[in-house]
């Protein structure tokens, strides 16, 4: 599903955010990306949804080489990828329903399809009773669930989450993890960047560790430590 071949990203001459990364993630995997602040987690995710282009190396997503993708093709790449952020990135002036519907409308879906699908996915994240509220009237955990609903409503092949529970308490974090697990169980490949070690202790899955942009660990549960 995702392959990286000696991928390097420099923002400037001195700072190397991602350094010679080789990685393969298969369809349906659930992968944690960990590492200290500034290790390059966010940059790696941004490379995957083509918000950044690699300085060197090749990136394949769903068999498509995206290392030199043209702007015209980026929208079609992003339709396969749902992204969730620490700061939710919701539109404050729109209702919950509109925020989620936005993702489907952007892909040009018909109106009756949109309503049905949005309702379904909001029900799944447990917010079907909040349809007409504005994001700011909701708690942080609820807002993040809306953001996840927006990412999942398009049935993405891949879900990228950049510290989705960074600002949320433990109980809410578990709710959110539950949503990711369910999406993963339906076949969505999940990449979750996080500082939070407690997550993978509770819910062990493959862990990729970055340090100053380099891959320093790639660990599967019930597995000896193996490094490429």
């Amino acid at each position: 599903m995702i392959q990286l071949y000696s991928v390097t990203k420099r923002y400037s001459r001195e700072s190397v955010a991602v350094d010679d990364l080789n990685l393969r993630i298969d369809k349906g995997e659930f992968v944690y990306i960990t590492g200290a602040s500034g290790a390059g987690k966010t940059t790696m995710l941004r490379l995957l949804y083509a918000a950044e282009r690699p300085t060197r190396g090749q990136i394949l997503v769903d068999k498509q080489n995206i290392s030199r993708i043209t702007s015209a093709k980026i929208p079609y790449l992003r339709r396969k990828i749902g992204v969730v952020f620490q700061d939710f990135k919701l539109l404050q002036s729109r209702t919950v329903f509109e925020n989620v519907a936005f993702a489907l409308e952007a892909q040009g879906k018909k109106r009756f399809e949109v309503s049905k699908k949005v309702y379904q996915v909001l029900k799944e994240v447990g917010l079907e009773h909040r349809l007409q509220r504005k994001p700011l009237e909701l708690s942080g955990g609820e807002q993040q669930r809306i953001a996840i609903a927006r990412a999942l409503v398009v049935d993405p092949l891949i879900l990228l989450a950049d510290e989705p529970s960074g600002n949320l308490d433990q109980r809410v974090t578990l709710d959110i993890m539950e949503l990711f697990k369910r999406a993963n169980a339906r076949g969505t490949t999940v990449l979750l960047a996080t500082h939070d070690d407690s997550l993978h202790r509770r819910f062990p899955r493959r862990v990729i560790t970055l340090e100053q942009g380099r891959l320093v660990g790639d660990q599967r549960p019930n597995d000896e430590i193996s490094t490429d």
Partner: protein
Amino acid sequence: MLERLRYFILRALRNMRQWPFLCVAAILTMAVALATVATFFLIVVNIEQLASRWTREIQIIAYLQSPPPAAKIPELMKQLESLPEVSSVLYVSPTAAMDHFRQRLGQDQSLLEGISEDLLPASFELGLHDSFRNQQGIEAVISQLEGILQVDDLRYGQQWLERFNNFIRILRFVGIFLGGFLLFATLFIVANTIRLTLYARRDELEIMALVGATMRFIKIPFLLEGAIQGFVGGVLSLVFLAVSFSLVIARGMNAIWLMPTDFNLVFLSASQQLLLVLSGVVLGTLGSLTSLRRFVRI
């Protein structure tokens, strides 16, 4: 397709409702800008109109080498009248010219005593149709005159005509120059206002790009919005112009301008009014387009 269009229009309208202040600012900017350009245009057009009235005085006087026999005069008149440029023909015989001269001398008529009645040459005075009261029209008539009359001398206000032509040329040059400058300033201001409205909505643009909206999908509602605002701005500027124009007329400002009483100020013609509103639409769309280019980058 229709549903797509409906969706885009709805989104454009909703955006405007969501940011009423920005929407009003963009509309007013365009209205003021368009009204300024149009006012300037009206001033130039009216000066030109007024100036073209001075050319009413233009006529050609052809002095003849010798007076034609009285029997030939009606035929000559008919020939001259048949020229397409000529609107009126007047024959002035030597006697009539002398009478005229005498009247002008008034008290000093005694100077003419004992002088022969046919001292002054006979002449034809030719009036011209409106559209031929210019250099080319006059030249066309003169070249045809040679086949009809034995012309001794011609008078048609050469110097005056030259000065008039220069005046019109300068007026047009200044008009185009200032008008172009105004238009450019307008486009700049409008693009900046729209950029402000887009800046307020950069989150929306970013998120749209993030969830896989194509460039076209992101841009169309904003372009539509620009077009709608431009349309409203254009209509507003037209209303403003029409109201102030009728105020000018009602207050009898005509008189202040030292205009001939039978001169009416010219307003925009129907097609020019349409053009004004269309310019608003184009201005709004172009303004959105140039500003969007800066904001929407994937």
